[in-house]
């Protein structure tokens, strides 16, 4: 696994820059990871991150758009405004979680 230095800290990441050891994650790191995506974290972003982290702890998978919307209560349009481009992928990255994948 490649390592990467961010905020003066060395973290383990995969080839796409997603963290592979969540124990290394903290809020300061989240802000730095977000900055790399051109995102400055606000309360709205933290609402998404907190929900994704709680859901991942319960289910073991990063929730999809529908679940964040229906269960997490965050409208899809808002999700796109907060994390433009690929909201689930970017929110997972900033949360220190794995990239959403299929089976292959």
């Amino acid at each position, binding site marked *: 696994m490649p390592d990467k230095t961010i905020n003066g800290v060395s973290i383990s990441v995969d080839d796409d820059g997603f963290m592979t050891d969540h124990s290394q994650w903290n809020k300061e790191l989240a802000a730095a990871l977000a900055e790399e995506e051109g995102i400055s974290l606000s309360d709205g972003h933290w609402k998404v991150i907190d929900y994704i982290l709680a859901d991942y702890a319960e289910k073991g998978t990063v929730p999809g758009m529908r679940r964040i919307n229906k269960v997490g209560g965050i409208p899809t349009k808002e999700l796109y405004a907060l994390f433009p481009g690929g909201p689930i992928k970017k929110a997972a990255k900033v949360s220190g979680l794995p990239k*959403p994948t299929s089976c292959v």
Partner: protein
Amino acid sequence: MKNILILGAGTAGTIMANQLRKKMNLEQWKITIVDKEGDHYYQPGFLFMPFGIYSESDVVKPKRRFVGAGVDYLEADVDRIEAEQNQVFLKNGECLPYDVLIVATGTAPVPEETEGMTGADWGKNVHEFYTFEGAKALAKTLDGWQGGRLVMHICEMPIKCPVAPLEFVFLADSWLRKRGLREQTELIYVTPLSGAFTKPVASKILSGLLEEKQIEVVNDFNIGSVDNEEHKIVSWDEREVAYDLLVTVPTNMGDSMVERSGLGDELNFIPTDKHTLQSKAHENIFVIGDATDAPTSKAGSVAHFEAEVLIENIMAFTKGEPLPEKFDGHANCFIESGNGKGFLLDFNYDLEPVPGKFPLPGIGPMSLLTETRLNHMGKMAFRWVYWNMLLPGHPIPMVGHRMTLTGKNIPEGVKIPESLDA
């Protein structure tokens, strides 16, 4: 007399019924299986119907034929489960009490979940192949195809058989070449994920396939609506993909009965212990196959391996013993890559698909993550195995429910999970 009730007589439900009738004491336990449809479909065959490789009669047989003696088969529509009362209500008002309930009601496409999907283009130049009727209609449309933009599209994850859309574009590529229509056809693959391949090892090995076959990939596309007037799909962030023929995989959801019973998540999948297959909400309800929310593929091979675990756990549960068996997420799937070749995948919750030989190390005869003619032949031969061995509940030689590292070549950098340490 106690009751074991199975809802759904598809792959998972049928295998469970046949395992239970062989192992349970039928003087003490009455086994009943309920399904609303009389036809059992060989679902892997739906992929082949649009290209004329399989005909309708290749993929359909009566459900009853596959449920052995000693099981009550009931053709009826389930209204709801009343889990607190341990009973199931049918739509005809009949009430079925149970001591143990197995939910095997699967998943189905729900095109109505996407704005405009069932509009004027539906069934004409917007199709799906995840149902028998859909695959039949698409075969008819493809038969008249003269060229244009053919778009394969996935609405949202999870979907049944996640490799099927990829197989579709590979088969379409070789089918179009044979017909002399490839030059006139643009093939586009649209996915909500970050790419057609998302697992690191498979991506490295297989990503060149799409370029080689000149298939364009559109990533991170979360559909908002289908525009039936302009014939295009539009994403939430207002990107557009125009189509002459859209082959979509609609949102896959669990049975609406699950929702009526208050037992499902936002997609009507049932929260299930991914190792024991016991419902998280009720200890006498077990869930198998596509109906669970387990984080592995929704596929027949998974249902088959889960059944081997579940039969042992249910036997223990009925004796008041702790559940002994743990499902590891094992899936074993062929990928048709076109031109009479295919790949084979073997993976579980903890280990992504890797190269190697299957089932025998160094011998195979199947090759993992490698394109071979034999893998394609294996996929075609599987239909016989499905009808004659899998559904009756006969063991498949050398393929166990627990995935092993035997025969696998673990690439450098891939961490072997502790659960698989040899």
